[in-house]
């Protein structure tokens, strides 16, 4: 006779801040195979047989929670975890139990880790830390771009509190838009995607913002070389409502003001001010309506701006010229968590995401009438010119977690998104008093409107103690320009437990992407355009198979090997000879004549060893991979390597706690050089033969032969970064001085290679002196920052 079963459920919170903890393990210590983890809202639900249980909860950095209860009915237990100073070692990997977990190809990177790792100019960067993981390529030197398992930068679904972020770059990609001080949790999915995620082919990066301290006020300020940051959080109503606000701004432009003033002071006829900055602001309010209901309002606003102002004066005349180039994201999420029953948890979200790119130029000057010398009046003439592009995404989302029984955990939900694509509108305004002229006009591309509806369901089934599978399906439907595209996307993941220390894993996932991304640079220019699918360029699709093994060694080490094979269809690439410079007026339709549709495939193996416990912690990752593309009209249909095809990639991240006041971080990366297209030989073209034979001086130049796209490898990339953090307890908090060395052994890595006379070289007239040169961007760069965390 089977024992009756009941459900124990509740939220897991940090005792000191009241923040809900994501991914904490909850289990019956008497029967350790019965367990679950808290979801992204800190909710858990565990169905157990009636009787005595030892409810336990563990999360790295916290004391183990244990409570013995007699389970006779459905019970709610909210678990409060205390931070354990005795085991407060630096945490490298998340708490996800790699052996137990059915999910594969997923990595949790705690923000504490990211804050300890050395980075360029001391700016904590979420995406740059993720680049150190196996299966993730980093793109060009210094950039925040991530290329996952052979996918492009557009194939990453990057979610901030569940809201898609369309441009993740500050300063042309050298920094990402995510402020490390406002983030609590980061999860990267490289494959085996759960059915709840859709819309991109290659990865999902799920970033969660902090919720704000429910117990007490706390704050943090940080001053670095290029930017300063602040974070303030605390209860609005203790244990009921909390807030967090975090902002940062670069100040290179402010630092140059004295020099610009000095320069302007020397020139009485003209003043010039110009500069660049970026800033961003994260804010969140979190209100507990009841034990079963909670609402959150979170927002992110970020902007990059380049500006130039020039004022010239002579006699009574004045000429003002202004130029602005700015771009940025705004994302907002209004979320309601509701516990319908101990078995059913629901989350409803309204989201808004906007990315805008704006160029504005304006001029204003005074003049006297040209035609009437008698007229003393000073007339003003003004003109302004602007260009605007971007994307707006509004969505309503519902997600449900249903703990059907001890063997079935079901997730299901829907997502409706309305998108407005703004491929580019120009506006011009002219007013001239003297000529009595007034023009105000706009032209360019009409906005495109699209609707996407998604429904999904997944069931994590425990077949027996050893075998667990996650079966899911995602159906999406995308309507644009009177055409409807739809896609069924099955997802399967399975885990076979060989012992309590070894498991085998398999996954299959089918993904569909309804957005194309127009870019042919690798540097994240703000001019890159998102556009919807069309009849000529249908949705991009991918199928990924993965298999792996996860092993726990000596309790301290996690070791995993994963192999994958991924095919991608309907990818787009610029045609030979085309570039983003060609995409101008008519971009919403004209772009189709500049690009091609083709296919790609990637396969490889990833090795990861992590050590989570002890004074020395960190990971070593190695990736062996191949990534290819094939387009009928590129290189005569030959298969060519993807630009970020990298045969060997190594990422090492180590953190060593020297004592309670000093820790050291070091990262070393190695990667096969990026593939670039360079000419192999030159030859006399047909039309120049006559000139050549007649010794005509002009018109005898040779043409270059490339062979294939991406036919040349840049030199291998490697770099060592080192950082030290010196902490000291002060009366009001903890002070930390951080010193870093980026590129510690001053490796001159290639950012760009070309024959001299190329983009950044001097024009050459005599090829006798021609050379292949590499342009290196960042030499050894020291950094220092000061951080104070208030108690």
């Amino acid at each position: 006779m089977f024992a009756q079963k009941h459900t124990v459920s509740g939220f897991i919170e940090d005792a000191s801040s009241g923040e809900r903890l994501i991914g904490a393990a909850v289990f019956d210590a008497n029967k350790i195979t019965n367990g679950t983890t808290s979801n992204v809202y800190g909710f858990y639900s565990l169905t157990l047989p009636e009787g005595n249980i030892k409810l336990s909860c563990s999360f790295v950095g916290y004391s183990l929670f244990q409570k013995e209860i007699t389970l006779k009915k459905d019970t709610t237990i909210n678990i409060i975890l205390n931070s354990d100073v005795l085991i407060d070692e630096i945490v490298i990997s998340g708490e996800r139990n790699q052996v137990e977990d059915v999910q594969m190809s997923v990595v949790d990177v705690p923000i504490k880790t990211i804050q300890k790792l050395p980075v360029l100019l001391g700016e904590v960067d979420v995406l740059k830390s993720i680049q150190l993981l196996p299966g993730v390529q980093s793109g060009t030197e210094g950039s925040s771009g991530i290329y996952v398992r052979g996918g492009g930068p557009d194939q990453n679904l990057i979610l901030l509190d569940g809201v898609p972020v369309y441009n993740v770059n500050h300063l042309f990609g050298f920094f990402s838009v995510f402020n490390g001080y406002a983030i609590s949790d980061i999860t990267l999915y490289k494959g085996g995607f759960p059915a709840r995620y859709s819309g991109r082919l290659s990865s999902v990066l799920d970033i969660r913002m902090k919720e704000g301290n429910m117990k007490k006020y706390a704050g943090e300020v940080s001053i670095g070389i290029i930017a300063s940051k602040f974070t303030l959080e605390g209860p609005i109503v203790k244990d009921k409502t909390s807030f967090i606000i975090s902002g940062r701004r670069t100040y290179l432009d402010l630092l140059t003001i004295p020099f610009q003033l000095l320069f302007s002071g020397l020139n009485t006829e003209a003043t010039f001010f110009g500069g660049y900055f970026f800033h961003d602001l994260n804010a969140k309010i979190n209100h507990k309506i009841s034990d079963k209901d909670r609402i959150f309002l979170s927002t992110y606003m970020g902007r990059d701006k380049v500006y130039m102002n020039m004022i010239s004066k002579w006699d009574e005349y004045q000429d003002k010229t202004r130029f602005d180039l700015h771009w940025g994201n705004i994302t907002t999420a209004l979320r309601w968590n509701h516990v319908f029953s101990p078995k059913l948890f629901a989350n409803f979200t309204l989201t808004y995401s906007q990315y805008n790119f704006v160029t504005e130029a304006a001029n204003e000057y005074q003049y006297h009438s040209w035609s009437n010398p008698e007229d003393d009046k000073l007339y003003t003439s003004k003109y302004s010119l602007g260009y605007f592009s971007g994307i707006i995404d509004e969505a309503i989302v519902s997600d449900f977690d249903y703990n059907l029984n001890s063997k079935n955990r079901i997730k299901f939900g829907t997502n409706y998104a309305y998108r407005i694509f703004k491929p580019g509108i120009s506006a011009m305004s002219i007013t001239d008093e003297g000529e009595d002229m007034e023009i105000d006009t706009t032209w360019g591309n009409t906005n495109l409107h699209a609707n996407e509806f998604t429904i999904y369901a997944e069931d994590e089934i425990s077949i027996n103690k050893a075998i667990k599978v996650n079966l899911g399906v995602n159906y999406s439907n995308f309507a644009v320009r009177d055409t409807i595209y739809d896609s069924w996307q099955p997802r399967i993941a399975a885990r076979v437990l060989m012992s309590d220390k070894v498991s085998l894993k398999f996954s299959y996932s089918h993904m569909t992407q309804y957005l194309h991304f127009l870019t042919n640079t690798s540097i994240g220019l703000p001019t890159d355009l998102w556009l919807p699918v069309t009849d000529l360029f249908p949705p991009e699709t991918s199928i990924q198979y993965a298999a792996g093994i996860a092993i726990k060694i000596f309790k301290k080490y996690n070791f995993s090997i994963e192999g994958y094979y991924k095919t991608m269809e309907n990818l787009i690439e610029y045609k030979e000879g085309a570039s983003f410079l060609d995409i101008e007026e008519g971009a919403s339709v004209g772009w189709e004549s500049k690009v091609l549709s083709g296919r790609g495939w990637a396969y490889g193996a990833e090795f990861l060893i992590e050590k989570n416990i002890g004074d020395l912690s960190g990971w070593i990752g190695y990736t062996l991979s191949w990534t290819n593309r094939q387009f009928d009209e590129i290189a005569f249909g030959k298969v060519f390597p993807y630009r970020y095809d990298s045969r060997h990639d190594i990422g090492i991240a180590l953190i060593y706690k020297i004592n309670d006041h000093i820790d050291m971080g070091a990262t070393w990366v190695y990667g096969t050089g990026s593939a670039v297209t360079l000419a192999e030989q030159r030859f006399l073209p047909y039309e120049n033969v006559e000139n050549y034979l007649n010794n005509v001086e002009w018109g005898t130049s040779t043409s270059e032969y490339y062979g294939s796209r991406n036919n040349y490898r840049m030199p291998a990339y490697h770099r060592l970064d080192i950082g030290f953090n010196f902490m000291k307890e002060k009366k009001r908090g903890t002070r930390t001085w951080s010193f870093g060395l980026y590129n510690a052994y001053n490796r001159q890595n290639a950012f760009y290679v070309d024959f001299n006379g190329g983009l950044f070289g001097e024009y050459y007239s005599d090829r006798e002196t021609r050379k292949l040169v590499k342009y290196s961007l960042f030499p050894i760069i020291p950094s220092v920052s000061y951080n104070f965390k208030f108690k």
Partner: protein
Amino acid sequence: MKNKYLIPLFLLFALITACSEVIDIKVDEKEKNIVLNSVISDQEEIKVNLTKSIGILESDKKVALIEDATVELFENDIFIEKMNYANGYYFSSLIPQTGTKYTIKANNNVLKPVEATTYMANKTNIKRINYSIDSTWRTEQWYDTLTQTFYDTIIVSYEEVKILVEITDNPQTNDAYMLTLAAKRPNYVYPPPDYLPVKVGDTLVTIYYNSLNKEAMEWVNINQNMYGGAIADNFFSGQTFTFSALIYAWDIKDYQNNTTMPLYINIVNLSDDLYKYVTSKNKYDEASYNPLAEPVNIFSNVKNGFGIFASYSVITDSLLIK
């Protein structure tokens, strides 16, 4: 509105040049190849030019003729003759026939032997030619730099001739079609003492025209005297197609005698190889002015080498515009 890109490019340039360090790196020289160039027509004997490709770091001056190769000509896979070298070309005595397959094999015992095949392009009949004359009034502004003002517009009149040339595609072939226009322009001398013009002959001059076709037309230069808009037949396979061209009336007027010169209308059939070559070369040339453009490979049908072996044929009609 390309100006919007100038600023990001400028900033990127400034950033990179500010921080960059230029370092020479070694590049492996590839094995050299034979470059075979020959575009044949049904109007002259086949001739082939052979040169040697050069390394990417070598000067254009290093281009060298290959004068000692064995060059063999095949017609429909049957050996015809060994071609003879003279003045930069290997010559055949054969004038190609339309619809026939030609193969050239070249070997100089040093570089890899090369081989290329093409079909002599067929001729197409011109089905119909029409024209109309129109006077177009255009407005122009001029700017006085002294007063920095746009002054009243000037009205200018141009007399234009619209030419319509209808052809039918042969569905059996895979050619492209090009329209070229030419006129015999009279040459005058002005002898003293009265300097009255005396006609001393004519020169056939190719006329540039504005294509009014909205289809995927490509402006193609076969040589210095043969250029015009071309279209691949896959846009109208087996169907009729009408070239629509606009020329200025003064291009065909002899103002000395106040007469109109006959307009020669050529429909040039380009073999598929030639069309691919010229269109890819156009893209290559355009891309060379854009540092961010994806590189373009120039089409070649020469196995183990570079260059092009292709064909064209011409059919001509004339029109006297009154």
